[in-house]
């Protein structure tokens, strides 16, 4: 039987990983992430997780 994917966890993992990559690149000096880019990235990360949780509906 095919195991059902937990979409909320997947989106949350992707979003947090993306945020982590951005912060890592900032730390290593490849890119420079200031408040002007960091805050939108953080908001987008939280927003994506909330939206995915809302779209997934109640857990059974």
């Amino acid at each position, binding site marked *: 039987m095919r195991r059902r994917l937990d*979409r909320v966890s997947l989106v949350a993992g*992707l979003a947090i990983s993306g945020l982590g990559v951005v912060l890592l690149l900032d730390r290593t000096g490849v890119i420079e992430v200031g408040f002007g880019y960091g805050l*939108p990235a953080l*908001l*987008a990360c939280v927003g994506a997780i*909330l*939206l995915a949780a*809302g779209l997934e509906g109640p857990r059974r």
Partner: protein
Amino acid sequence: MSGMSARPLRRDADGGIVAGVCSGVGRRLGVDPIILRVAFCAATLVGGTGLVVYLLAWALVPAEGEGRPTMARLAGRRETWLVVGGSTLLLLSVLLLLREWGLWFSDAIAWPVLLAGAGAALIWRQSAAAAPAAPPPPGPAPARVRVGGPGSPDPFRARRLPTPALGPVTVGAALVVAAGLVFLWLNDALAPARDVILAVVVVVVALTLILAPWWLRLVRGLSAERAERIRSQERSEVAAHLHDSVLQTLALVQRRAGDPREVANLARRQERELRAWLNGGRPEPGDSLAGSLEAAAAEVEETHGVPIDVVAVGDAPIDEQGAALVAAAREALVNAAKFAGGGAGGSISLYAEVGEERTEVFVRDRGPGFDLAAVSEDRRGVRESIVGRMHRHGGSATVHSTPGGGTEVELVIER
């Protein structure tokens, strides 16, 4: 017309990996979904737009087999707040990015416009949802409509917002007012009114501090009064029910004390009614299977004066199959009452288990029992009214009986 344009865009929720957006779009465009997945991932890693677009598609494109998109289905549910919060944060992040890139008017205009837009959207959405429905079909109008006047509904009532819509409308109005205040504040137009507002705020705070103890006492008093009123109403309900049922039955019992069978019937009926009341009400006989079985048992009990214990687990709306089941069970109860009711330990039991796919009813008695093979062909009670009826409606009936060992009639219907 080509197949591509004839087929509407749908998410492939079952065949997809996350929400089936890439799979659905790929099928619609005739493109391998893997290419789209790679494109979405790349767009996500580059600037995050891939994730935003994917989530928007998830929200706005309906899945295969669904009539409406997810957003429309979510309206009015708890998850709506999660969706609204997530969408707001995503929108805010995009706006902050645009501001950072310089694609921006000015803070004094953009933020008030956004606030006012959100508030207006809330108000318009609620007012659109509360718009009067289509005129009712010709025929007698419901009594509720006719209360206001002869045949015509109250026009003001039709335009009034329903109570659940008042919350979002209030939030929308607050957002619009806040947008106006933010606009005035950012443009320094509130400076002349600042002193007046400060004085008003100080007076309001002072009055709140002074009146708070009385207000709290008033609120507590109202709560206590409400609780007392509820208790009093419950007591009245119980007293009214006891009067209508138990006291009336006791009066009948006194009047018919010379007829033991009638007294037993009255007591039995009262016991059944009281048990149903204690268990939270009895299902209506005409609507539900369990209710119809109980009604049939009560009727047989009253007619034949034999106690029948009814236990029903689960319930379902009654349909043609259910009606046949009830009729067969009634016939089995009548047989049991006729042939086993007066015997030793003469109680009859009816056990019903109503499931989603299968309904089983057992009618048992401890009577003398009989040999089914020995029943003559012209006796139609068991053969036609029970076994034949169940077969005609796609069910089965089995009679287990041995002489001296009681009888059990098993009725099964698969849905």
